[in-house]
Structure formats: C-alpha cells, structure tokens
C-alpha cells in the first residue's frame, strides 16, 4: 500500500502563544542605500523578526517547495494554536496553495504578547492535528470508493510538524504523551465512524525554536517509536537561518527530494538584461551564478546506482548535512525541436526562488527554452545527462539516457517491407495527420453515443481511412485538385445541405472536365504504351470516386445523395454502350436483367458494405453497377437514354417513365440555390445538349470496352 504514505497528509501546528512574539534577535539591516548617501542621514535601526515570523516564513518555504514539486496528492493542513486552535485551511486540493495560507496567516496576525499565557498552549493545535489526520481526504475517499469491498486497504497515515518554543525536555514529553493519547482516543472514535479513518501511522516532528544567543532548554532527539502508531523526533533549532535550513532538510527527507546545482550559467550572454548586472554591482554581491534546484531524488537514480555520485560533483554544504549534485549548463541550440530519449521527468523547485540567478534561469525556461545539462567527469569527457524544460508553466528536470543504446544501428525502414515502394502519398498523409491532430476537451464530455473524446478521435480515423490508397499510382481522384472539396467533406460524420451542394458541384465540375476532355493524372504504371485512353481514364476516375463515396454512404441520407449524384452524372460505362448495341437486336434481354436487379437495388448499400475492404468492393463494383443500372427504378438508364437520344430527337422531358433524378436535382438546385452562380457545365448540359459527351458519337465505344478489363 504505497499510495497513501505518511507524506500524503502533513499537519503543520505553529505555536501562536505570547512567547512566540519574542524577538529572534537576528537583526536585518534594511536601510542599505543610506550608507552611500553621505553623512547627515541617520540610518534606520535594523529590524528583527519574532520567533513567530521565523516559524511562519520557514513553514511557508516548506510548503512552497512541496507544492512546486507535488502540485497534487500531497496535502497540508495548517493549524495555529494559542488559547484555542485556528484552522487556516483544509485537506481539500483547492486549499493547497501558499497564497491561500498567506492570506489566512495575515488574518491571524502575530501573537498578542498581552494575552494570558496561562490560557495559551500549542496542545490545542496538536489535538486538532490528530483529529484532522483522522479526516478523510478526497483522494482517500476516491480510493475507498473504487475499492469498495476492500476499502479497508486504503491506508491512513500522516505527519505532524509542530513549530513551538518548549520549556524543557519534560515539556516535550508532555506534548508527545498528549499526541499519543489523542491518537488512541481518536482512533476509537474513528473505528465507529464512516467519515473518519483511524490513524495507522503518525510521525511527529517537534521543532523547538529559540532566540539567537540563548542556550537551548530542549535537547535534540532522533526518531523514536512511542507506540505502534506514533514515532517522534525533536529538533532544537535557533531561529533565523538555522531554522530555515532545518526545514529545508526536512522537506527533502519527507518527500524524497534531492538537490541539483546548475553551474556555469552564462548570465551575461543568455539570461539577464543589463539591469541585472547593474543591480548586482549595486548590491555588491559576489557573482555566483549557480542555481540550486530541488526535485524528486529519482532524477539522480542513474548516479546513485552507478556509484557515480561523487564523480558527478556532489558537494557537501551546510556542515555536511546537505548534498547536491552539480551539473553544468550547456549552451542551448537554437529552437531545435527534437525528441530526446528521456527516461524520467521531475518537477523542480528553486531553493532560492527570488535570487537573481534563480529567477533568470526559471524565466529563461518559462519562455520556452530548454537547457541541456552536462555531467562533469574526471576524464574530461562530456556526458549530457539531464535537460531542464518547461511545460505549461511548470519546469521539469528531464533525465536523458546517456548510456549506449541497445537499439543502435538498426536496418533502415527502407530495407524492410514496403521499403522499396517509392510513390507513397507522404504529403497527403501528412495532411491527413494534421486533420487528425488531437486537442484537449473538458472533463467528462461524452457525445450522443457515449463516446469519450479519444474514442471520437479513433472513430474519425476510421472514417477518414475507409478508402485511402497508400501510393500515388494507386489513385486518380486523390491526385486531382478538382476532387478535393468532395473528398474532404464526404469523410465527415454528418453533412450539411451546403456540404451536399459542394459535393454535387464537385461532381458537376468533373462532368464538365470530361466534356472538355481534360487530361487526368492517371498512372501509366503497369500499362503498355501511353496508358488508357481518355474516356477509359474517366471511367477509372468515376469508379474510384464511387468507391470513396460508397464507403461513406451508410453515414447519412445526405451521403447517400452524393452517391446518387455521382451515379446519375458519371460517364456511361462501356457495358452500357455494349448493351445499347445489343439492345437494338434484342430488347427483351433488358426485361430479364430488370427482374434480377430489382432486389439488389432496393437494399441500397447495406451497412456491411462499409466493412469490406476497398479492393473487395471494387471487385464487386462491376456486377453491382450493372444490376443497378439495368433496373428500371434506377436513375441511370432513364437518365442516359434521353441524353443519348437527345442528339437525335427527344428532349428529356418527353421521355417515358418517371422523371429522372438528374432532372429532379436540376429543378431543386435551381429552386434552392439561386444565389449561387450557376455551374457552367450544368447550363450547357441543359441548353446545349449536343456538346455533352460528344465523343460518344465517335467510334471509341469499342476501345473503351476493351480497356475496361485493365482497370488497375
């Protein structure tokens, strides 16, 4: 049970009794500028922080580092104790921020030195802290809810950090005993409650703070088990920087942190504007441009395992209590977008967040630059071991793989399957990828069919790939600019009336191209000579377009209409031509075909059609189109007849049987889209019938038929 370790809940109990108002006797000179202003000006007396101020600012620093490295799941409950306890926040995630705590602390204010010391005690806060550890956090609640039957396996552990000024070692014992007893009582209470959890483990960290210059009345004591549940340790620390470094060490211990110092930062050239340097000179500080960062200790895992920690330049500081690994800044390459092989990424927190070098480094990173870090080695060789980079306002220390790759020197992809094909539609697939890029949607958004956003993304990929030839020589329509509007629209889940119109326009445009005998980008691969003739090329194009649209015909009625439009407008297939010739001899043959085709026609591309591969569909296409075109209910023959005959005698209106679909369309489109510019091809086809499919008069019919076998 790892998820809820002791570090899940930290209760801070800060003593707010009158004695905490006492001065820490650490003086801060804040009138620095006066010195340079010559005589006559009396400098302001240095100010000193109270014990309370020291305790509060160091605990805030602890929280700052904690929240930087663990923005969630590590919770703090801040309690202040005087004549009673004051709870400054709760375990709720929303309450976990230093600003919230600062505002609450301001409302509490410093301890009142005139308050009756008899009524005041840190005990109120300690009792409240134990009670608070029994309260369930939202994370524990969620874990219990998901585990249900084994909910008792959700752990409840926590830590109490008490910042106080104790009277003596006996006083410390008394505080420990009190916590121990309260835990026992609260655990009994919690055992009988659904809303509380007994404490399984509690670490009490008592920090005794005393003014500088005083002797301590309390002795340090390392961790000791007081009961099966409670352990306690005592730290006796002088207020001021000693306290600060103590809490810095504690936060590292409590949350498995480690320290990295970035060295060789080229402040002048990279990070800071000249103002900084001026300020540095003013402040007369040494130009130490090292920046120390804290992060999860796993970022040093490789060093620890390899025993390379010393080689990595670890230095002891603060009397050997703290270790840091030194890594050297490497001048970043300019905006190089590349994927590094990164084996871990850990949030950081600068130790000295407001120092110039720190804020220069963090601002540099927050502005989107990355910095590679080099592990200095005795041999002098360079090993890039880490990288600093920000993502969405958070800075991460990335661990880069610096050992030999086991995947080195693999065969190139061009040596494997499909590697020798040279005409992949790389650009088109790139466009496809752009259209299928992802974007975040808000939590819990499901569509009408209950799909999550990522399921919708997959569904879109499915639609977009129903017909997607991989190589240029395998397709005609995707090599034609004229088809683009339709190809982009037909893959949509639903079409608007306007979309249908755009698709129809695309089809009419193709009809016009065919009429004008425009060349098509048909591949000549695999065919002898110049490839298929022009009208055969169009037949191939129409077939492919139908294949594309048929793959989507089940999506909606509007998709269906696009297919109908194509079927109605496309050039006459050779078998039709053949039939026409034969038809002169034997009219009765048509009747037979009529009967056969009727059933198939009415089904109109069942759903199962979509599941078939494009090739499979294409194979069937010939038979299918024959059946449909031969059926009296199908628009095609009726449509074709007048058009073919128009050259000779009859206008379409005078044809027998029902009104053709094209006529219906023509009527509807003229009715609904007067605003649109009338498509030239359509105008021509109505008014100047002789020009449409003029080539059919020529004796190309036979050729068409012969070439028809070699579609692909």
């Amino acid at each position: 049970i790892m998820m809820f370790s002791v570090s899940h809940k930290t209760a801070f109990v800060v003593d707010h009794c009158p004695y905490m108002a006492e001065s820490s006797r650490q003086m801060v000179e804040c009138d620095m500028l006066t010195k340079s202003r010559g005589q006559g000006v009396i400098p302001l007396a240095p100010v000193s922080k109270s014990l309370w101020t020291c305790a509060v600012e160091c605990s805030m620093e602890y929280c700052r580092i904690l929240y930087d490295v663990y923005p969630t799941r590590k919770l703090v409950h801040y309690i202040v104790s005087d004549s009673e306890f004051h709870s400054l926040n709760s375990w709720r995630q929303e309450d976990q921020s230093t600003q919230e705590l600062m505002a609450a602390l301001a409302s509490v204010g410093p301890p009142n030195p005139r308050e009756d010391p008899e009524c005041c005690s840190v005990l109120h806060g300690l009792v409240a802290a134990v009670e608070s550890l029994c309260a369930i956090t939202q994370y524990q609640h969620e874990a219990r809810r998901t585990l249900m039957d084994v909910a008792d396996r959700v752990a409840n552990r926590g830590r109490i950090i008490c910042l106080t000024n104790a009277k003596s070692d006996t006083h410390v014992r008394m505080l420990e005993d009190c916590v121990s007893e309260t835990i026992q009582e609260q655990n009994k209470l919690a055992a009988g409650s659904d809303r509380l959890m007994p404490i399984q483990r509690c670490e009490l960290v008592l920090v005794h703070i005393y003014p500088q210059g005083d002797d301590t009345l309390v002795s340090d004591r390392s961790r000791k088990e007081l009961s099966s549940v409670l352990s306690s340790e005592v730290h006796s620390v002088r207020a001021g920087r000693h306290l600060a470094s103590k809490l810095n060490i504690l936060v590292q211990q409590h949350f498995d942190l480690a320290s990295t110092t970035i060295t060789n930062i080229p402040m002048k050239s990279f990070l800071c504007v000249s103002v900084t340097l001026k300020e540095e000179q003013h402040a007369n500080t040494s130009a130490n441009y090292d920046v120390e960062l804290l992060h999860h200790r796993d970022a040093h895992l490789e060093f620890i395992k390899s025993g390379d920690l010393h080689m990595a330049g670890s230095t002891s500081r603060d009397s050997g209590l703290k270790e840091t690994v030194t890594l050297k800044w490497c001048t970043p390459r300019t905006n190089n977008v590349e994927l590094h092989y990164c084996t871990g990424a850990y949030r950081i927190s600068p130790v000295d967040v407001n120092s110039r070098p720190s804020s220069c480094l963090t601002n540099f990173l927050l502005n989107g630059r990355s910095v590679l870090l080099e592990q200095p080695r005795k041999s002098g060789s360079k090993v890039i071991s880490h990288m600093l980079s920000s993502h969405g306002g958070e800075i991460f220390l990335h661990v880069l793989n610096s050992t030999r790759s086991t995947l080195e020197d693999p065969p190139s992809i061009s040596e494997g399957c499909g590697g020798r094909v040279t005409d992949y539609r790389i650009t088109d697939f790139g466009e496809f990828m752009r259209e299928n890029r992802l974007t975040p949607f808000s939590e819990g958004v499901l569509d009408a069919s209950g799909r999550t956003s990522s399921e919708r993304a997959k569904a879109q990929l499915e639609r977009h790939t129903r017909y997607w030839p991989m190589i240029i020589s395998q397709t005609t329509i995707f090599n034609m600019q004229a088809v683009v509007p339709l190809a982009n629209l037909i893959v949509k889940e639903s079409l608007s009336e306007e979309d249908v119109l755009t698709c129809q326009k695309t089809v009419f445009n193709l009809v016009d191209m065919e009429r004008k005998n425009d060349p098509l980008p048909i591949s000549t691969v695999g065919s002898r000579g110049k490839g298929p003739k022009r009208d055969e090329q169009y037949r191939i194009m129409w077939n492919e377009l139908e294949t594309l649209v048929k793959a989507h015909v089940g999506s909606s009625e509007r998709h269906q209409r696009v297919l109908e439009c194509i079927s109605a407008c496309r050039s006459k297939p050779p078998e039709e031509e053949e039939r026409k010739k034969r038809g002169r001899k034997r009219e009765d043959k048509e009747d037979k075909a009529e009967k056969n085709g009727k059933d198939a026609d009415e089904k109109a591309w069942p759903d199962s059609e979509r599941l078939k591969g494009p090739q499979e569909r294409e194979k069937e296409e010939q038979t299918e189109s024959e059946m449909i075109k031969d059926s009296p209910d199908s628009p095609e023959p009726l449509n074709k007849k007048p058009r073919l005959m128009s050259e000779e005698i009859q206008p379409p209106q005078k044809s027998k049987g029902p009104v053709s679909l094209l006529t219906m369309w023509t009527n509807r489109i003229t009715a609904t889209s007067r605003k649109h510019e009338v498509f030239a091809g359509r105008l021509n086809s109505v008014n100047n019938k002789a020009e449409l499919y003029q080539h059919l008069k020529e004796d190309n019919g036979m050729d068409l038929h012969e070439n028809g076998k070699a579609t692909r």
Partner: protein
Amino acid sequence: MPFVALKLSEFTSTYHRSGAMPTVVLMDSSLSMTRPVSQEGSEEFQRKNLAVHGLTMLFEHMATNYKLEFTSLVAFSSLWELMVPFTRDYNTLQEALSNLEDYDKTCLESALHGVSNIVQQEWGSTCPCQVVLVTDGALGIGRGSLRHSLHTLKQRVEDKKFPLPFPFPAKMFIMCIANVEELQSTDAMDNLEQLIGLNGGEGQIFTMEGPLCLKSVQSMFGKLIDQAYTPFYAVLHCGNLASDVQVFPRPEPVLVDEEVDPIPKAVQTDLEIVGFIEIADISSPPVLSRHLVLPIAVNKEVDEVGAGTTEDAEEEPSANQMAGKSPNFCVLLHGSLKVEGMVALVQLGPEWYGMLYSQADSKKKSNLMMSLFEPGPEPLPWLGKISQLGPISDAAENPYGEDDSKSPFPLQPKNKRSYAQNVTVWIKANGLQTDVQKILRNARKLPEKTQTFYKELNRLRKAALAFGFWELLKGVAELLERECTLLPDSAHPDAAFQLSHAAQQLKLASTGDSQYSAFNHNITPLHTDFSGGGAGDRM
C-alpha cells in the same frame, strides 16, 4: 515474469524499464562439465556437448528472430573470461562456443561479478539484461563455491558484497545440464533457488527431463526460448489502415504498484493510433522504454501474392522482394511523421499509451520507433488525460489556428508554481533588503514611478502581514517619512504627498486594525490636485 514498478506519486514513478534486453551467456567451463552422459549405443556425449548444442539452438533462434539483440559470451571456472563482447554476430558467438576449453572448478560468485561489470560498462545501470547461466549444477566446493558464497552472505563488508541483486534490472535463467533428481540429491537446487531469490525472484531454473540427451536439451532450451525469446508481433492500426509489425525489443509486462493486488500490464497485440501531435507539443516526454516497429510480411499475405506459382521453399527470397515492393502502412506513416515533425499517439492497452515517431541514427538511417509511456490515464501532465483528447474537428474553431500558428498544448496547471508568480521570500536577509531597496528606488522617482512604487509597496505589505512582521511595516514607514524630508527642492510636490500617504498607510496596517491590515486590501495612490507626470501612471 513481470518487472516490478513502484508507484511513488501521480507522476514521478520508478519503473524497472522493459526494453532492449542484451543477453549474457555465462557458460560453466569447469572440468565437471566434461562428465560423459550415459547413452545407449551411439557416440558418447559430454555434458558440455549438450550445453553447446542447446546454446547453438538459442543462437540460431536469435539470429533468425532476434537479429538486433546483443549477446555476449562469458566462460567461467575459478576465473572468468569474456569470450565474445556484446555483438549481433551470432557466427562469432557460435565459433567461440565451439572452441571453448575446459578449466578447473566452478566459482560462480566471481563470474557474476564479471557479468555485473561487463553489463554496466556497456549499458549502464538502467538497461535490463538477461543472464543465461549454463551449468551442470556442480557448483564448486569449499571457498568460492556457491554454497560458501551463500553461507557468508551476511558477513560481507561493503566492497565485497555478493553481486546479486545486480544494479541493473536483470532476469536470470539457469539452464541445468542435469535433471531435477540429480540436483536435489545435493543442495544444488536449494542454492540455485536462493540465487534466483537474491535476484528479486526475477528468473527461472530450467532442468532436463528424462535422460540427458540431445532431445531433452533441445526441449529445455525450447522452453527458454518460449519464455524469454519469443518475438512480439502486433498489428498497428490507424483506422482501416493497418500493418503487421514486430515490436523489438519485446515489450515486457509492467507492474504498477498501487493500493490493491497489482496485475502486470502487457502491451496488447493490436496497437491503435488515437491521433497525432506535434513533436514540439509532446516535448521530450519521459518513457519507460523504446522499441523498433518493424513491418513484417505475414505468411498468408505472401501466400496470396505467390498464389498460383510454386510452393517451393526457395520461393522465400522472391517473397521478400514482393514484400519490399508492396506498399506498407508503416513506411507511409514513418515518412509522413518524419516530414511533418509529428508523433502518433498509440494506445497499447486499457489506460496505457505510447507514441510512434521517426528516429534517425547518425548514419541517416531512419526507422519507425515506439516509446511506451508510464501506464495510466494521464501519462504526461502537459497533455492532460488522454481520454479527453479528441479530434480538432470537434472544436468550435481549430485550436491550432488556420495557419498552424497556435497550439492547445501544453495544458496549463490550475495553480502557478512559485517561480512563476513573484512570491516573496525573506529567509535570507538580502531578499528583504532587495525588496526594501526597490521601494526606496521608486520612491525617489516619484511621481513618474507611482505605479511601480505602490506595486512594490503592496507586495511588501502583504508579505509582512502574512508573516506577522509588523515591525518591518513600521520601519519602512519611517524610511519613507525620512525620504520625504530628504526630497530636494526640485522634487515634484506630488512626491511628498505620496510618500507621507504611503508611510501613514503602512503604519495603520502595522496596528493590526482590521480596517487597514486586511491582506487583500491594497494601498492606492493618493489623489492630489497636481496634474504632473504621475497622472497618467495612476491606477
């Protein structure tokens, strides 16, 4: 056997990473390996011959199915020797194997030290390895014997520690050229089991069944191959586009240690692309392991292509040629990912994702690679939950902008980190001094700097109130009053008014009077009748 992973927090986790798995073959070359095995009729075999036979079978399997795996050969007796450093050349390995000489007694501990050094020197300490120990189970006598090593485990000083567990994740496969009964008649089996235990239970002991012969050694190595060297085949899907692939090295199941009994997560054999993301947006994410995605021609397809021709085995080269010439989705995907600088987000299983991208090596050879993210619904904080990533067409307007000038990534966290929000820290004296100086410097440039003066003043005021540092408020008030008296005659009259106003407000705040010491209250500039330069600067 799954690799164990510990879940330390929502994001920073330690995994024993699966991935490329170099193999060290540790071959027992002690004299006992030359013992003959009883064999009815035919020629006489030594145990060593059986071991070589088994390893030959393993090498042949790897040369065919695991061409990219690195293998090294270490022979040991009382000393150890690296016979073949890590290589993909199985001929060299085979040759070295056939030329092995026979030495003295078995001393496993020093050999394991050798393995540890060889692996760390070559691969560092994070790369998982497989150790195949081939032995007859006679594990030495006296000092240097495994029994002795295990007995003295607890008496070791720091620099003479037993080499197990290795500093790198390792699986230990022990191939015994002996049957169980033989091993159990001594304490050999117990000792070997203890060895696996020391390796964190990662590994397995294989023994021979029935009489010691070529057939039984084949069957034993066959089991090893099934266990540790089966290639991982999968189908990569992007909607209706698909390709059969081998994922190399084989992705091992990952165990995420959470509240309840963890179940190892295995990569499923259908890898489904969810969508695409720019390289700049995915931004060097941390990964568990990297794998090559190699398109393969599945036999049935080759059959289809070659249908109607001969079914001769010699048909294979031409079948391979056919495979090279027939379009493959992996090649298309790789080409476009490379050109566009994008990655494909791929689903590996329930709540487990990875990414596909083009990777070029120094020789400009380029390949389709797959990296596995840490299992879980939100592997990267800057992408958010993967299930909440949807197609851009669902968005009201294209989040990438019509000209690709924008991006919806990275996701911004709810709260800013301390380094991104100008926090006040006065732990060190110069932090406080700098803040006071900023106020004084601006005070001298009033009324031009009215805005900045009050901004810095309010920042200091807030922090002082939170820290209960009222003495500072009084001190700064005094400083401002003094500045007021030091103003030169040429100073703008507004300066004096603002300074005394600010000083008075700080003093009021330091009384703790709730009217003046509210945290969220801001001191605002005094409205004066002077229409000097400060007017435009006011809040």
